[in-house]
């Protein structure tokens, strides 16, 4: 191959040289380029006619199996392909009828009886029945499947004991009962006020039993059932193509019960990871919307694309973990001092500049109607005093240098540098910034090999519980070494509470304990930054960044 190239190259020299002499070569080259690349309408221009949404997905989803998926990218695809018992309102995310046309909740709020619609169909024409849901719940809870999100089903009675392998399905009496083909009864361990909302998480989505069994996927990871030629779904769209790292295509599913309401004819998802590339794709009309926007580009985009750039609230908190198992953070005063020395307003306004909100609590305010009292504040004087009292007690002049660990990223570095400055100015502490590759970082934090480490948490459902359950003693996500019985009790009381008032009161106690003992240092609440073309309609900002596609349509910019 090489030889022939070289031969061609040297032979063609004889033709090229006279051409170069007369500069005709350039003319021919230019002609070829123009012939190949005549100006074509962009995706966005064509979309009004074709009704295809071009969607920046951010990353290639690891799985397209709802019971194995773990990512936002997977949610974005799966919510097009599958539908759970309920669906959600495009603005408020309040539960609306989905595969179940109605439901009844018992007086003790522990039993939910769903009546499924008779016209629910899988994309191959099979009816969607209560058996499908029961089968799906059993599959994700099956310990042999190794689902990472099975704990989302733990509100179901006895689900955890089956999933953790203590009991077989027959003995476990998991709270799932099929009363008839179209009636499904779910029994909960405790009342869960956000239960219906939870059903919109993909871990609760149904799978088509014959397809799963055909590919032996009941308890096996990585079978071919999720390939476009095999996938059978019950959602508004069908999987029609999947080229890894290139595009995932879905087209309208005519078998969907509410197909008449679906206005898009299809969606193309592009897993573009590089934010600059995604932005370029957007600006050249390749995408209708981007997954993210680089913080460095905000000023430019604000000026050039004021109608396209959106800052939307997002249910997430950026924070640091202290390691309580080693000095100096085993002492509460040092943690408090570090916490009080952080000026969050300045961090948000001068460093991040992306519309983030300073975190004065761990749970973002307004989560499911819960507004924690602002407790994490900026008070450099108290910070100094607290540190002084610690140093005196230990007979130290100053703290030894402290290592701040974060995973390699420009954004995390910026925050770390800003905090380094604040701590140095206020407390005179030397901070060593230590960046690590992602997996090394994760394993160091999980093993407790850190002093102070970056972290972030995005809620799975709109309820304070999704944030506050992390700090229960012994919880895998805790990783700070902090344990507090009062906290555990308050959390449990909130979980069992009969009234909203009681729940909120107990969650406030949890927040108060966090602010008092400071195992973590909340810094800011996330915002979702995105570019969205003005022709995309029916798309509303929601806290979980869920956007049910059946309400989305494309329309010319100037129309109302």
């Amino acid at each position, binding site marked *: 191959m090489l030889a022939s190239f070289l031969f061609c190259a040297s032979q063609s020299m004889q033709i090229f040289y006279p051409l170069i002499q007369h500069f005709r070569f350039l003319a021919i080259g230019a002609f070829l380029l123009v012939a190949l690349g005549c100006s074509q309408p962009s995706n966005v221009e064509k979309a009004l006619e074709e009704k295809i949404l071009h969607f920046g997905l951010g990353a290639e989803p*690891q799985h397209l199996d709802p019971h194995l998926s773990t990512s936002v990218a997977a949610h974005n695809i799966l919510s097009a392909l599958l539908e759970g018992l309920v669906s959600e309102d495009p603005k408020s995310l309040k539960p609306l009828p989905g595969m179940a046309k109605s439901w009844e909740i018992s007086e003790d709020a522990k039993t939910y009886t769903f009546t499924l619609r008779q016209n629910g169909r899988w994309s191959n024409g099979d009816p969607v029945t209560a058996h499908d849901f029961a089968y799906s719940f059993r599959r994700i809870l099956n310990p042999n499947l190794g689902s990472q999100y099975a704990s989302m089903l733990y509100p179901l009675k006895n689900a955890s004991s089956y999933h953790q392998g203590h009991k077989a399905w027959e003995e476990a009496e998991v709270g799932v009962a099929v009363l008839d083909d179209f009636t499904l009864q779910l029994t909960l361990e405790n009342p869960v006020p956000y239960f219906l909302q939870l059903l919109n998480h993909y871990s609760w989505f149904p799978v088509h039993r014959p397809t799963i069994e055909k590919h032996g996927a009941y308890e096996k990871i990585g079978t071919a059932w999720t390939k476009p030629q095999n996938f059978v779904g019950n959602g508004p769209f069908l999987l029609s193509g999947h080229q890894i*790292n290139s595009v995932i295509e879905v087209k309208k599913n005519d078998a969907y019960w509410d197909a008449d309401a679906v206005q898009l004819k299809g969606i193309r998802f592009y897993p573009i990871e590089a934010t600059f590339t995604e932005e370029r*794709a957007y600006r050249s009309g*390749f995408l209708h919307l981007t997954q993210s926007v680089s913080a460095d580009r905000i000023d430019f985009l604000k000026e050039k694309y004021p109608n396209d750039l959106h800052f939307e609230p997002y249910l997430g908190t950026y924070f640091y973990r202290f390691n309580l198992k080693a000095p100096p953070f085993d002492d509460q005063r040092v943690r408090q001092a570090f916490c009080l020395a952080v000026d969050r307003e300045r961090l948000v306004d001068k460093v991040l500049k992306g519309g983030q909100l300073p975190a004065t609590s761990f749970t973002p305010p307004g989560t499911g109607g819960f507004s924690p009292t602002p407790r994490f504040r900026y008070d450099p004087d108290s910070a100094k005093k607290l540190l002084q009292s610690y140093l005196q007690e230990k007979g130290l002049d100053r703290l030894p240098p402290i290592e701040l660990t974060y995973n390699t990223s420009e954004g995390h570095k910026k925050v770390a540098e800003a905090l380094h400055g604040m701590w140095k100015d206020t407390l005179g502490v030397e901070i060593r910034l230590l960046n690590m590759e992602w997996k090394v970082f994760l*394993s160091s934090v999980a093993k407790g090999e850190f002093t102070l480490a970056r972290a972030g948490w995005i809620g799975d459902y709109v309820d304070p519980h999704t944030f506050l359950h992390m700090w229960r003693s012994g919880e895998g*996500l805790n990783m700070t070494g902090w344990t507090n019985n009062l906290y555990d009790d308050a959390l449990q009381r909130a979980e069992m509470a009969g009234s909203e008032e009681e729940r909120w009161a107990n969650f406030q106690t949890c927040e108060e304990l966090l602010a008092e003992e400071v195992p973590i240092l909340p810094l800011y609440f996330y915002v979702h930054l995105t570019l969205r073309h003005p022709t995309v309609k029916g798309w509303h900002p929601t806290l979980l960044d869920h956007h049910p596609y059946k309400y989305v349509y494309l329309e010319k910019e100037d129309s109302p």
Partner: protein
Amino acid sequence: MRKLIISRVLQAVPTLWVIATLTFFMTRYAPGGPFDSERAIPEEIKIKLQSHFGLDRPLFDQYLLYLKNLLQGDLGPSFKYPEWEVSELIATAFPVSLTLGLLSLLIALMVGIPAGMIAALRKNSWVDYLPMSLSMAGICLPTFVLGPLLIYALSTQLGMFPPLGWYGPADWVLPSLTLGLFYAAYIARLTRAGMLETLQQDYVRTARAKGAKSWRILTKHAARGGLLPVVTFLGPAFAGLITGSFVIESIFFIPGLGKFFVTAAFNRDYTMVLGTVLFYASLIILLNLLVDLLQAWLDPKARQEK
């Protein structure tokens, strides 16, 4: 010639074995694992996942099993994308990288060799200075600068080509041009250097004395010798080109092999790391052999020595 081929193939087997072994153990001793994520997985689930992928067995058993499967041509499923086999992912991504690599190489040769030859022929004139300055700029200008510049000029401003993607021939132009021009710069300089040396040779002077035109001297007499440095450079460069470039793939959103090389390591996707490394190693071995054969063809002295 046949001896050379046979001996190279025989050398390839232990080479690949050493590479497979080193890569296997290096990836396993890297901190972190394929199932680590910010959302910590409960221990019992982690154990299930590990047994799914055979990671619960003793490391040496895993290694033997891997070698056994490798001999049968089975690279296993990807850890990161378990719905895909490693061989399937390579088979999807390699044709993309191969197309991009071949087109870039074509551009690199078509631009680089003529530019270098003209520069050598008219040494210290403007046809020497201009392409050589441009090529120096080309070497210094990284592809992540050149790529977006080309996109801005030819796509955003003139709308001639799609800015990104890999869905049809029009998409091939900008990435091939970016990568091709980068390599053309190297090739031009190598060609010029090789040519200048050859043009000093006695046989070239003889040809000139006999009245051969300078163009004829260049193509008929000097080209074979003058292009030797380029050929040596082309072996590894070609392997690099056709196995994908992470940067070009990120800029132009191309589903090539380069991305897997980089992300597989970050993801601790053990099977994918091994798959891509072994694939790359085999390609290098193959291409080096081809280059040796080509050199023997170009240089009679080397042919005799071998």
